[in-house]
């Protein structure tokens, strides 16, 4: 009996110990103020960015940031890759649970949410020697720099010269009517005329891309204090989008990866896209830097830009090393290293395009010129809620496209839903 009791006690103790270990493993660390080991001691930094997966450009960018290990030979970088569609959701979940990568690139919409939640490490002590440009100013909160610009990528109208030449389109259109006309000429030779995202299945990308339309028509989703979703300028923008959608020049149903591939393979004439994507079209397909055309958007006003920022996880165990990495990134060495991979984008500091790059990619100067005047994609005054507000807005646009709902009525409904 005694032997049996002892055996039972031993089994019970083992189960309890195992459970305690399992639960301890689940527990997070509260030690968010620890800077970790000094940067000079090295360590492994996990750096997260969806761009690592981009064909052609991903490896160029990774090789560029890996230059940090030359400045700090004790450091090792590990790339964390998640596809764009799931990137923000995965990172938010990880960071919310107290985990996640040490350093990450995020869109400014996600930045606003994470900054509000206190999940970003202030970087001021890592930026004392940096000469940051004005693109970094939106990331200052209560006097603290919570992130630096990774790249600011304006939107422009892109053209495939090979396709447009064959269709007899001599220059990129300057208005929506001209766009439709040019698109029909391209359609006549068997290619698709013009493409943009247009489906809720790509909500994250579409809601970003679409920002250029209301801005291009002089509108916007807020005036800084209240939402203006149903403003007449926005109604005009949605109406114009609907005209393009119905004109037959758009490959309805194509997602971004499909129409981007078509563009690279000379099966699509024009598209609206950002500077980062534009650079990726010049490798791995039939489009080269010489056959890629760029022009301002076919609207009266300038459009939007995407801003991607580099931030450090406030719960990282390697904060000192992570901040040293950021310090290197904004240094002349770091900025020069990433410039070729980031193409015509505005960077954290004013690093000019190289002569070699400009000669190889004449289209890039259009983006550089636009970069000075394009506007951010966050809704002024509602920055952290941008994604939430854009849900009813894009649903309204979808109803206009697929159910022929009146644009004004659709945006009024979105205004009502967003302000509820």
């Amino acid at each position: 009996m005694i032997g049996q009791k002892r055996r039972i006690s031993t089994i019970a103790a083992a189960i309890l110990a195992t459970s305690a270990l399992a639960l301890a493993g689940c527990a997070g660390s509260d030690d968010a103020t620890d800077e970790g080991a000094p940067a000079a001691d090295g360590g492994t930094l996990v750096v997260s960015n969806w761009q690592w997966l981009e064909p052609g450009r991903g490896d160029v960018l990774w090789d560029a940031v890996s230059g940090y290990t030359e400045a700090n030979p004790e450091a090792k970088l590990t790339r964390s890759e998640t596809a764009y569609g799931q990137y923000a959701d995965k990172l938010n979940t990880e960071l919310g649970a107290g985990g996640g990568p040490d350093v990450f690139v995020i869109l400014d919409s996600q930045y606003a949410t994470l900054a509000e939640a206190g999940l970003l490490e202030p970087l001021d002590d890592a930026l004392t020697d940096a000469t940051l440009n004005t693109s970094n100013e939106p990331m200052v909160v209560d006097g603290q720099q919570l992130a630096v610009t990774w790249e600011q990528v304006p939107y422009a109208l892109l053209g495939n010269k090979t396709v447009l030449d064959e269709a007899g389109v001599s220059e990129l259109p300057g208005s929506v009517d001209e766009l439709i006309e040019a698109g029909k000429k391209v359609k006549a030779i068997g290619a698709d005329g013009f493409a943009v995202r247009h489906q809720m299945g790509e909500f994250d990308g579409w809601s970003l891309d679409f920002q250029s339309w209301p801005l291009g028509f002089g509108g916007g989703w807020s005036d800084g204090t209240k939402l203006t979703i149903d403003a007449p300028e926005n109604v005009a923008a949605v109406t114009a989008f609907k005209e393009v959608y119905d004109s037959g020049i758009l490959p309805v149903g194509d997602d971004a990866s499909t129409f981007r591939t078509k563009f690279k393979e000379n099966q699509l004439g024009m598209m609206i896209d950002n500077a980062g994507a534009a650079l990726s079209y010049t490798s791995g397909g039939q489009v080269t830097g010489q056959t890629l055309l760029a022009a301002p958007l076919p609207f009266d006003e300038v459009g939007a830009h995407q801003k991607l920022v580099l931030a450090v996880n406030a719960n990282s165990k390697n904060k000192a090393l992570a901040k040293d990495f950021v310090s290197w990134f904004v240094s002349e060495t770091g900025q020069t290293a990433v410039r070729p991979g980031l193409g015509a984008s505005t960077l954290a500091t004013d690093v000019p395009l190289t002569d070699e790059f400009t000669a190889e990619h004449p289209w890039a100067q259009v983006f550089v010129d636009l970069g000075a005047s394009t506007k951010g994609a966050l809704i002024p005054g509602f920055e952290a809620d941008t994604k939430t507000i854009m849900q009813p807005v894009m649903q309204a646009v979808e109803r206009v496209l697929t159910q022929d709902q009146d644009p004004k009525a659709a945006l009024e409904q979105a205004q009502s839903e967003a302000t509820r």
Partner: protein
Amino acid sequence: MATRSSTQGSPPPAVRPGPSSVSERTLAKPRRNWTPYLFIAPALIYLAIFLLVPLARGIQLSFTDTKLVNPGGGSFVGVDNYTQMLTSEQFWNSFLATVLYTVGTVVFAVLIGTALAVLINRPFRGRTVVRAILTFPYAMPTVAVALIFVWIYNQSSGALNRGIGVLGLGEVGWLTDPAYGMFSVVLATVWKVFPFVMLVVLASLQSVPEELFEATRIDGADGLSTFRAIVLPHIMPTVRIVALLMTIWSIRRFEIIYLLTGGGPVESTNTLVINIYRQAFSSQNLGLAATIGVLGLILSLSVTVFFLLVERRENKREASA
């Protein structure tokens, strides 16, 4: 142990060993043996940690305004989330989409799966190959199925529209027109899941005694009569269980719907699970997402209870017959 030592060296007992007298038997304290409990303890602990704790946490979250990026920081809001959901038109649209998707998927998958099981249960040349081909969709990863159907359904260049274009019909927005969105998603799902029904029903069919078929042949029954009199009663319990499983799985299915439409077009495929995802990740509102999860759980439990009641009624009916 005491009994064993007391009988050592004795001749084999004529009766089963046990307490020697009535008084000893009645006075003996019942011995509690903990060993079985210890054996099942790991499984119970596993279930508690990975099932009950998350379930309880989900229910608790549904009474808070917790955000995704600060899961430990929500405040108690009472039944506000439930009030908001139950009075929201979007929630009821989502509920209706779930019911439509579930009914469509279960009905078509069970009908097609059962019919094909009956067909391939009969001996014919190449039966093994046909069975393998019909099982193929179930073996395919859901992501691959979704990508194939996205290509098939593409409005401007998809195989389906090219096919009907040859017939002189116009372009159909299989994934972009709200009138066709749910149909397209159900069709893709049924293609993916019908082999499961087929395989389970086939297994059930193979346990029907051959003598019964011989008896119907001797009686001169035709195929339909044999099916109604012999096959159907035999496979019905299996079909009911399969239908229950398919219903529960359909209520909580996410990936194929999300990959095909993301809940669109115009909310037409925004099922409860897609709605949970949107609330949790797009709106970052874990509290509301948990509320929809709890309401979805109630829906699943209601369906399960309904099926179990039907099952019990059928069992009683069969027993009385």
